[in-house]
């Protein structure tokens, strides 16, 4: 057909394709139905193409959007395409490559960058909460940049890490808290600006993860950063400002109530002494409203510790591309102030992603990210092992008496030695009527710490890769990629000599410097071949990775003058601190074979052989097999009447093995001697025996899944059953302490555990009107975790909080880290004593210093008895891991407005609320206001026992009791956002291509019966053995943000 003829028979049709936000969509394929005539939209989403005279319909399609057909009209058309984040044809990033979701047989969840961007978080992993099935993410507390606890399909280890492997653009990176200073956390993932992320894929089953072999037991999270797109030069600016506030703070006793309750407790103690010894107790009612000089205070300690934190975030990027080159460059700045005073996070980030077609078949590219982040935090007592610290800000407002002030009347700090001054309180037990002894709390004055101390962790991260891809013959790609991930940390702590932790040292400055250096070299060959209905793909590759981690540091004490507040100042003493060194090397060979027949029968086989330097036996093999059947591709289905409605059905299954070495000591198999000092002499000491048998934990993962689509895939979903058997769990097998083994444990592959459950995803485009759209999506995961074997069936592995309190025990037949607590039988109405139940059923009660014995008596007989103990009398409460969790997302759009309502929910778990025991402790500690409902002669049906001064037993400080074990079910309105996209016409006049303004609330509401500050809490961070413990932690903030997205 000649060109002239064509022209004669065609007319030109033109228009514009926009997204649901009204912005032009570049690169959309516009096809004349029934022909091969087509065009792509330009940078502004405009298209123009010749249409044959007989053509009536255009088809618009674009990856990530639902395709649409429209009639060719006379006037220019404006077509709105709706995003479809789980579109079946989207490319899914998998290990060392991509696959179409339609052909995928492994379990991979995708979270799009849009769901992550604009959220007021420090690291993108925090924003994944509730977004993907099978992925449980717990924010341990409201302290900035504290790594969330991520568990993909349950806990997968006991002694090693249960966290997933994070891979950024193909290079495995660091995660978890890397800070050397306990008070301040540093999550290396915060070095990636969330706005730079295109997609996050979560690999869950054996088929998807086996390609990562020995590192994949906890799942793999792949992060793909944004790239420039062909033909689309774009300059974007995203910004938001926000404020964070604390919520759900406890209602504490005020000064008057405190004085009344504590003096009542002293009177009760005196009565107890009289009853027990026959002589009157001589304890003094030492609690007063005002001191001898008449100074009275009613301090709400929260007011000094919490604030409204103001945050801002900016990200500027430009991107574009030609046929040969695509590029994206971005710079970002974020400054976030948390709700805790002095809790500030700041990041400068920059990224360049370029790809260039060097020759016809040779592509080279680079992706480089540089970021500097600085996190600063006060001693919150919520990070690291700080739960019981005497300076923890989670704890201080709960224990400090409200009738003392942080300041003396002359404006100076109220201190006595390291601690806060006594104020108007006298020690009831050591004072006499004539000689009053001040009651020194021993806890710190938080204002001194907040004003003077600082804890910072600053990191410089250079992360990226260079790669080259050669298509040797059609379909055969050879690719090499050399990546580096160099991360330096400078961690600082400064403690003033005025009071607090630095007092006895005379002021202290500690600096640590840590370098994480990694290189990763991957070489792969991939061959794709299609012949008729048969499609093959074969991948073979080699990967080597070397990681070197070193830290050195020093502690300087005895500041020469208060003028010096940095390590570089002058001090009297210096000692080495925090030195460590480790290195490891991983060498791997891997392959993947996929086959599909007509996108109908799908098959994938994956294998990997890993060699790892830490083991004595270096190599191990891992594999995954999976198959799928897309029934809806069968002819009979397509011809069936229901196919119009029920248009997609796939069943698939997988089986395979992966391993875990994440968190194992680099030299775990070697016999070693350490060195320290004896006075001024050097020492050597035995520190580790040879351990030649220790090797990877292995996980056998089984998966069965069904995916469906209804109504032209307006309703899509999937349901998956997973079963994950972790074998050869490395346990720090407890050794009898009398053996004197260093650390009292030896690691060995002895345990096994399984996680199983269901995952459901559902997404429904309820309405897709031109003006109004409504999309609902939700996911739900169930988890049944059970420890199948340990060293032997009687072994109980303790999980200890801050080395002081053991609430969790891991045993065979129960979920990991279950809580062991002595059952509570309430408050005895007859005498106000706490009643607990011993293992033999005896109900015993406690009266502090009120008997001649231990204080414990048998309720029925009144006879003296021994204290119940956790190990002998405790019963298990579990699981502490949520047994169900998920998210529920609603997106509404009306013209330019969009409204997002995202609910995260979780439950089925128990929490050990240790904070609650502290809140009702009858030492001088302040109490939660509900203590007013304590037993008295007039109030015999009370919630709390009769108060007796000094009693730290009745409410749980010394015995873990079921009184403080609570269910952790909750639903949280995690995010509500309302946005408005300025109409295209207005925007165009301003030479802009897209403008959106929005407001949103994070943590807008919380529905829970949990009495603590937040049911989503983990004072022990990512600990496998001591999860679900709430001890003096700070909760999560509520954050209001307003933002703007503009692109030119």
């Amino acid at each position, binding site marked *: 057909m000649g060109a002239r003829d064509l022209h004669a028979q065609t007319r030109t049709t033109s228009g514009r394709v926009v997204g649901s936000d009204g912005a032009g969509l570049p690169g959309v394929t516009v096809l004349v139905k029934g022909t091969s005539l087509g065009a792509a939209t330009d940078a502004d989403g405009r298209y123009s193409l010749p249409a044959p005279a007989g053509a009536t319909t255009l088809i618009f399609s674009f990856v990530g959007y639902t395709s649409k057909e429209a009639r060719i009209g006379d006037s220019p058309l404006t077509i709105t395409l709706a995003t479809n984040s789980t579109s079946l044809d989207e490319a899914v990033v998998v290990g060392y490559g991509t696959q179409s979701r339609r052909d995928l047989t492994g379990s991979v969840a995708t979270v799009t960058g849009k769901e992550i961007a604009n959220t007021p978080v420090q690291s993108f992993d925090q924003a994944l909460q509730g977004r993907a099935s099978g992925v449980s993410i717990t924010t341990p507390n409201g302290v900035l940049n504290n790594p969330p606890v991520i568990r993909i399909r349950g806990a997968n280890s006991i002694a090693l890490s249960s966290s997933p492997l994070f891979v950024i653009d193909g290079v495995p990176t660091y995660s978890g808290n890397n800070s050397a200073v306990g008070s301040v956390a540093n999550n290396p993932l915060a070095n990636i600006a969330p706005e730079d992320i295109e997609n996050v894929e979560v690999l869950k089953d054996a088929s998807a993860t086996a390609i990562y072999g020995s590192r994949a037991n906890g799942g793999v999270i792949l992060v793909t950063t944004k790239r420039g797109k062909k033909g689309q030069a774009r300059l974007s600016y995203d910004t938001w400002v926000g404020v964070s506030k604390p919520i759900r703070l406890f209602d504490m006793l005020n000064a008057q109530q405190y004085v009344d309750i504590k003096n009542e407790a002293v009177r009760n103690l005196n009565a107890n*002494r009289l009853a027990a*010894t026959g002589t009157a107790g001589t304890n003094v009612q030492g609690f007063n409203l005002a001191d001898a000089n008449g100074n009275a205070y009613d301090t709400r300690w929260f007011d000094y510790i919490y604030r409204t934190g103001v945050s801002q975030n900016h990200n500027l990027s430009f991107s574009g591309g030609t046929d040969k080159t695509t590029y994206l460059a971005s710079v970002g700045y974020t400054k976030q102030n948390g709700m805790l005073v002095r809790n500030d996070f700041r990041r400068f980030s920059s990224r360049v992603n370029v790809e260039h077609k060097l*020759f016809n*078949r040779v592509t080279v590219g680079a992706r480089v990210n540089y970021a500097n982040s600085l996190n600063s935090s006060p001693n919150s007592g919520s990070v690291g092992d700080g739960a019981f610290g*005497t300076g923890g800000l989670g704890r201080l407002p709960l224990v400090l008496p409200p009738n003392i002030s942080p300041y003396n009347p002359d404006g100076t700090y109220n201190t006595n*030695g390291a601690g806060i001054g006594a104020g108007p309180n006298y020690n009831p037990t*050591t004072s006499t009527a004539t*000689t009053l002894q001040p009651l020194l709390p*021993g806890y710190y004055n938080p204002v001194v710490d907040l004003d003077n101390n600082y804890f910072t962790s600053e990191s410089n991260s250079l992360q990226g890769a260079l790669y080259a891809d*050669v298509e*040797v013959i059609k379909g055969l790609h*050879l690719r090499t990629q050399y990546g580096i991930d160099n991360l330096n940390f400078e961690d600082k702590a400064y403690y003033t000599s005025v009071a607090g932790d630095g007092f*006895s*040292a*005379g002021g202290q400055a500690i600096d640590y410097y840590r370098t994480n250096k990694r290189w990763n070299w991957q*070489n792969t060959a991939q061959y794709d071949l299609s012949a008729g209905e048969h499609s093959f793909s074969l991948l073979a*590759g*080699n990967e*080597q990775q070397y990681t070197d981690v070193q830290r050195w540091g020093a502690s300087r004490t005895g500041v020469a003058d208060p003028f010096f507040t940095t390590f570089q100042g002058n001090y009297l003493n210096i000692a*080495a601190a925090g030195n*460590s*060194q*480790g290195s490891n*090397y991983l060498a791997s060979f891997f392959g993947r074979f996929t086959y599909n027949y007509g996108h109908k029968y799908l098959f994938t086989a994956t294998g990997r052989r890993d060699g790892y*330097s830490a083991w004595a036996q270096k190599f191990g093999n891992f594999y995954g097999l999976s198959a799928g059947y897309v029934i809806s591709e069968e002819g009979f289905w397509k011809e069936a009447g229901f196919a119009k409605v029920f248009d997609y059905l796939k069943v698939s299954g997988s089986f395979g093995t992966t391993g875990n070495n994440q968190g194992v000591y680099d*030299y775990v198999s*070697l*016999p070693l*001697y350490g*060195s*320290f000092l*004896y*006075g*001024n*002499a050097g*020492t050597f000491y*035995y520190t580790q*025996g040879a351990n030649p048998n220790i090797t990877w934990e292995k996980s056998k993962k089984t998966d069965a899944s069904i995916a469906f689509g209804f109504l032209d895939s307006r309703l899509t979903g999937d349901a998956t059953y997973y079963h994950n058997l972790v074998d050869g769990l490395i346990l720090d*097998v*407890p*050794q*009898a*302490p*009398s*053996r*004197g*083994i260093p650390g*009292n444990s*030896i690691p060995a592959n002895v345990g096994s555990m399984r996680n199983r459950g269901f995952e459901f995803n559902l997404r429904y485009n309820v309405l897709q009107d031109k003006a109004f759209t409504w999309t609902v999506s939700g996911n739900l995961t169930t988890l049944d975790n059970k420890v199948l074997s340990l060293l032997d069936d009687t072994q109980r592995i303790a999980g200890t909080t801050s*080395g*002081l309190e*053991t609430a969790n025990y891991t045993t065979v037949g129960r979920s990991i880290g279950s809580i062991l607590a002595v059952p509570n039988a309430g408050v005895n109405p007859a005498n106000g004593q706490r009643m607990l139940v011993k293992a033999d059923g005896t109900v015993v009660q406690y009266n502090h*210093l009120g008997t001649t014995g231990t204080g414990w008596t048998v309720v029925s007989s009144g006879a003296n008895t021994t*204290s119940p*103990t*956790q*190990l002998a009398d405790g019963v298990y409460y579990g699981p502490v891991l949520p047994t169900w969790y998920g998210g529920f997302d609603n997106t509404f759009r009306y013209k330019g407005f969009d409204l997002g309502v995202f609910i995260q929910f979780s439950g089925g778990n128990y929490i050990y609320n240790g904070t609650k025991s502290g809140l009702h402790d009858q*030492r001088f500690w302040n109490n939660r206001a509900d203590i007013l409902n304590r037993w008295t002669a007039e109030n015999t049906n009370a919630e709390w026992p009769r108060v007796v001064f*000094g009693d730290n037993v009745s409410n749980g400080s*010394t015995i873990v009791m079921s009184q403080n074990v609570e269910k952790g079910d909750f639903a949280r309105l995690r995010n509500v956002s309302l946005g408005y996209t300025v109409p295209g016409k207005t925007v165009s006049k301003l030479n802009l291509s897209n403008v959106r303004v929005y407001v949103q609330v994070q943590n807008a509401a919380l529905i829970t019966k949990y009495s603590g500050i937040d049911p989503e809490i983990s004072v022990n961070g990512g600990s496998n053995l001591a999860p679900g413990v709430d001890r003096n932690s700070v909760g999560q903030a509520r954050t209001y943000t307003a933002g703007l997205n503009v692109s030119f």
Partner: protein
Amino acid sequence: MNYSFRKRVAALVCTAMLGLGTFSCQDSLLNLKPVALLDAGVAFDTPSRVLAQVNGLYSYVKVGGFLGGRYQIYGDIRANDFVNRTSNSVTGLAVWNHTLAETSQNDVVSVWGNAYAAINQVNIFLAGLDANTSKLSAAPFPSDYATTATYYRGEARLLRALCYYSLLQLYARPYIDGNGSRPGVPLRLTAESGSGNNNLARSTVAQVYDQILIDLNFAEQNLPLSYTAAQGSAAVSLLNVTRAHRNTAIALKSRVYLTMGRYSDVVTEANKLVPATAPYVAATGVANSLNASVAAVFAAPQETSESILSFPFTAQDPPGTQNQLAYYFLPTQLGGNGEYGLNTSTNATTGGIVGNPAWLSTDLRRTNFVVRSTATSAERFLAKYPTGSPYTDKAPVIRYPEVMLSLAEALVRTTNTVDTRALALLNAVRNRSNPLAAGATPIDYTAASFSNSTTAMLDAILLERRIEFLGEGIRNIDLMRLNATIPAKGTVSAIPSTAANYVWPIPSTELSTNNLMTRN
């Protein structure tokens, strides 16, 4: 671009990738070793490494959670001479209150663990010496190294004895209770490294004491008389205080026999160190003696000849947080944390020694070591350990006057008389701190002071020990070896020897792993 060039580029890239990458795997990188830790295979390769291991044994015994501070503190705060000021459960509150549980971390669990960790270091070292005899008899070891190795064995076994002795004082009934027939602690005498071997029953108290004496007798026979040459930066004066020598073994034996109530053996041992008459200076070995000034004994660097064994600390090797003696006893104004003040009550049974009028107001131990936090404060503190951060006061283990007073007590008990030599010994210790002022009447005890009652004299000796060793962890030993009631104080009741909490509970960590272990 022409085709052949493209082909060449492709071929080059492929070759490079295949050659360098795909099939490579660097064996040396698969066998990485640490650079800050020593491979066990070379630990016995040089004399300095073996010596470093000996020092390592001491460093294990003197960790802050054991004999570097906490053990001494617990020995004092169980009784009534101190009051708890901070209600901090991390710093011994439950010890002071007698409310310890088998899960109590910082005391019950930690002391046990630290003691046995040190014991195993000893056992591993002894096994290592045996296993490496061929190495030790060749270069670079000198030809007379066998003697040196024997010294080291003596030191190791002395430390093991000290650990077992210390364990018995807290976790077992005293010897006097059933003549050592009550349950002691598991007796671990062989090196423990791999898995297994968790179960070991408790030996009886007597069996553990037997082993302690075997070790101490071995030490006495094999330790050097004294240190005569500096080792690196450790001077002779330091070595003779911080490393065991023959007199250390003898002194410890006198303590062990006293604790067992074997008084004639106390006399035998103490006689090796204490001459019949003043001046009281050991005749052989290190010239351990009663130092003229008690203040000087506790002034830095605490290296007088009176200190038979003390554990050193430096800024680089500090006792660790909340373990330091001065941190517990010194008031904050003087650089400590005032965890425990002196019990100023003057009650005859529940009062502390500082409120006891028998401790004269002019006593140099009172004038030097009892302080107020401020001039007006009613509280009193012990200032025996004067050095604040970084808390480098040496932690005392045994001093010469203890041998003297043990001897005095044993003489009274064996002769059942108000023994003259015992009187002289008691007076020597007492008068060192109560020198005669001009024109004052002599304050020497005489037989008449006790109306010839041995009981009264024994009480005087015990009182003197309570004053002399205040804050050195001896009080608990002195109460328990006699099966005496632990006195009440403040709101804390007395603990009779029949009470369950007269001794510490066995740690839950041991009970849960050692199936043959039994509770107290």
